[in-house]
Structure formats: C-alpha cells, structure tokens
C-alpha cells in the first residue's frame, strides 16, 4: 500500500529526514515512536504532501502510484488521511459544509455520486457516534472553540467520514485524558479493517494498549534505527530510548 525508500527531506538547509524506508501493507498497524525532534511529525507531513518540506531524494509509492508527484488533495482523495497533532481552527467555516465537500470529493474520486443532503446528515450522525462527538460540534466552525480532546475526537470523526485507505495519526493521543484516549483509540480500532492500514505516531505505550501494532519503529535523527513487534513499545516504555540510541551511535 505504502512503500517508502530512502526518503530524504529538508526544511531550508536542514535535513530532517535522512533516509527513511518503510513498507505498510493492507491490514497492518504500524507505530512510529522516537524521542522529540527525531522527525516523526515531519515524516507524516511529507507523506501528506506539505510544502513546508522539500523532498531531496528517495521515493515513495502509494497504492502503486508515485506519491511524491501527487498534490496534497490527490493523496487525500486516493485515501491518505493525516490526523493532525494540532488540528487547525478555521473560523466561519462550518464542520458540515467542510465535510460535505471533502466526502463528495472522495466519492467523486471513487466514481460515486455525491450524497444527498439527507444521506449526508445520516452519515454525520452515524460517524459522530463512533467517537462520541457531541453532534452540536458538527454544526460549529471547524475546531473553533473545541477543547483539546474534542479536536482530537474531531480528527477521528473526519477519518470515519472519509474512510481512508491509509490513516497516519500524528500524536493523536497527546493532550488527551484517560477517557478521551479510550474513546479516540477505540474509534480508530473500530475503523480498522483488512483492506486499510494505520500508522500511529506516538510518544506513549498507553495508546498501543488499545491500538495494538503489528510493527513498532523507532525514529531517531531522521532514520528508522530499529523495528520490532509490539513488545518493543513495552521495552521503550520501561527503559527509554538510550539503549537504542547508544547502540546506534556505536
């Protein structure tokens, strides 16, 4: 589904990704962990097509197509979803209006007819229940005045609406209390199927109690320096990154 080979990316003169290779297949859950500043969020942004970063070398394919030649919206319409670490507030733009355009763009890409107003409302109701998002919030402006937890729930709500093939969740667990974490994580788990895949970027093992990963990767200084199964996350929680980083330095 997603194949990344030796990807390098910079912002200005500073190289942040220094040769990332990663393969994600349908049905898999990957967790990317690593100390602050290791490039986790940059990787997510680059895969989503952010123009803040320049890809200097390497390649990436998504569903067999050259990912790097696609625009941000083409990637999204083909089924790539990025759950933002800091969801953006957009004053005056209603969630409903925004989601309606987004859902219908995805449908158009799949060759489906746009939803009628009634169908769309039904979908909104059904999907907001997945993350217990107060239906009042969906009639408000995008993320405006939402609490931290509501913003993160809103990301997963949008993920449910758009039914992505590949969801990359950038620190969806940060700033959540225990209840919100459970709701968000359960929502993500419920959306997981054999024909889609999830990449979760996280600092904490506790998210992985709910979203059980098939693979755990450790990102350090712009490279994946170690990959393992879910037991790696437990070890990192107990021992920190030092043993790995030291290994890597030698």
């Amino acid at each position, binding site marked *: 589904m997603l194949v990344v080979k030796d990807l390098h990316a910079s912002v200005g003169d500073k190289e942040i990704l220094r040769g990332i290779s990663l393969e994600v297949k349908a049905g898999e859950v990957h967790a990317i962990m690593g100390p602050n500043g290791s490039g986790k969020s940059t990787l997510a942004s680059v895969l989503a097509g952010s123009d803040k970063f320049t890809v200097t070398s390497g390649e990436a394919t998504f569903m067999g197509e050259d990912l790097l030649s696609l625009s941000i919206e083409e990637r999204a319409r083909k089924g790539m979803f990025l759950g933002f670490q800091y969801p953006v507030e957009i004053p005056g733009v209603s969630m409903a209006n*925004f989601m309606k355009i987004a859902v219908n763009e995805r449908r158009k890409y799949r060759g489906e007819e746009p939803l009628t107003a009634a169908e769309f409302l039904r979908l909104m109701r059904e999907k907001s229940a997945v993350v217990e998002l107060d239906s009042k919030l969906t009639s408000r402006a995008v993320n405006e005045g939402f609490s931290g937890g509501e913003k993160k729930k809103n990301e997963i709500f949008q993920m449910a609406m758009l039914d992505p093939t590949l969801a990359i969740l950038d620190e969806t667990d940060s700033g959540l209390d225990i209840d919100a974490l459970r709701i968000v994580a359960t929502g993500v788990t419920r959306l997981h199927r054999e024909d889609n895949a999830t990449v979760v970027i996280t600092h904490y093992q506790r998210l992985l109690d709910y979203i059980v990963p098939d693979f755990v990767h450790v990102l350090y200084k712009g490279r994946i320096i170690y990959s393992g199964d879910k037991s790696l996350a437990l070890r990192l929680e107990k021992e920190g990154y030092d043993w790995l980083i030291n290994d890597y330095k030698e």
Partner: protein
Amino acid sequence: MTIFELLEQGAVLPFAGGVIDSSTDVSRPLVVVNPTRLSVDVRTSEPVHLAVLYTESRTSSVEITLAEQAHVSLVEIYLAKTLSAVEIRQQRASECHILSAVLCGANTSYKIGLLGDHCASELDAVAVATGDEHATVAVETRHEVADCRSRSWVKCVASGRSTGEFRGLVYVAPDAQRTDAEQQNRNIELDGARIVATPQLEIYADDVRCSHGSTVGYADAEAIFYMRQRGLSEADARRLQIEGFVRDVVGRCRTAPICALLDERVVEKLSEI
C-alpha cells in the same frame, strides 16, 4: 431575494426616517433604500431593527439618535460605490449594534458618540474589495462620558488590484472614567491587492480599559493545508477560508430576514475573488 421582495411580502416595513416612538410599528425591521439624508430619532425602549441598503452610487448621510434606554440594531449593506457618513448619538443606557457589510468600492464612515453613561456600542463590519475597487470603513467611537462600553470589530478582504482601508479611532474624554473600549481589525490581502490600516487611540482619562489590534495577513497556509489534506481543491480551500473570514462577521447579523439577503449578496461578492 431582493429587498423589494421582502417589502412586498411584508417581512420588512418601508421607512423614510423621523421619530420612532411607542406608536411606531417596530415588530418588523424598518428598511430604508438609498437615503441621501436620513435622520432617525429613536424614543422607544422597544428593540428597533433598522436596515439601510445602498444600491446606487451617491453621497449619503445618516443620523440616528438613541434616547435613554433605546435599543437599536442597524444593518447596513453597501452594494454600490457610495460616499456615506453615519452618525450615531447615544443617550444614557442606550444600546446600539451596527452590522455593516461593504461589498463594493464604497467609502463609509461611522461616528459613534456615547453621550450618556452606561451606553453600549457594538460594531461588526466587513469590507470585501475586488477588481480595482477601493473600499473604506472608518470608525470613530467617542466616549464623552464615564461608564460606557464599546466594541468594534472590522475585517477587510482585498483581492485583485483593489484596496481595503480601515481607519479606526477610539476617543476617551478626560472625564470618561471606567470606559471599556475594544477595537479590533483583521485584514486579508490576496494577489496584488493592498490593505491600509490606521488604528488609533486617543485617551485622556486614566481609569479605562482600552484594547486594540490590527493585523494584515495572507490566506492562512495551515488552514489551506488542513482542508486540502481532507480532499478539498486548493481553490475550494481558499474560497472556504475567505468565506469563513467574512461569515464570522456576517454571522453576527441579528435582523432575521435581512440576514438571509445579506448572506446571498456576500456569496455573490465572494464569487468575484
């Protein structure tokens, strides 16, 4: 929908100015179209909804006096290149909310005099300039006496080769203690357009709370990225963002049938960007 349809349906009432007192029917919004000289004297404490539409190029002056405890909600919609001066005079404990939408190259100025204590003035204005238009919103709020509060919130969007201009002044007289005044101005400059903003404070009293701010920005790149990541085209994302910026002001309209009309005109205007 046009204002004439609303008048025909009886959703709003025609008005030519003069005194509004307890004998005046204020159950529906009172509407004035293209005034040259309009003088309104509000002497009732019933809430009064007044709407003024400018559809022809001309010079216009509007004077509204609010007696003690009067409540006025004024909506102004500029659809033609007008040179307009609006003066509001508020007596004790009166409240006035102004919503102004400048959807063309009009030059509008508001002078709000708070002449009695415990008055409240609120102004929400938006100017959208396209092509080679020059749209101006000037707001002068004068706190002449103590214990009044005022808030003005002005937004401009300029695209093409147009200019959006904001001039703001909050004046606080020497005896106007315990004044609470806020003036905020936000602008978006697109393409090769120009924004001119001159916010000013003139404060002669010492026990006051005054805040003001003015920013000029381009389209919010983070918001555009966010929307495109959800599958919206760049053009749709830009349009939604600008629409949201404007709707944030227009959404504060409190005069029901006029709000719907305003919404339509705003959508039409934004399609020119």
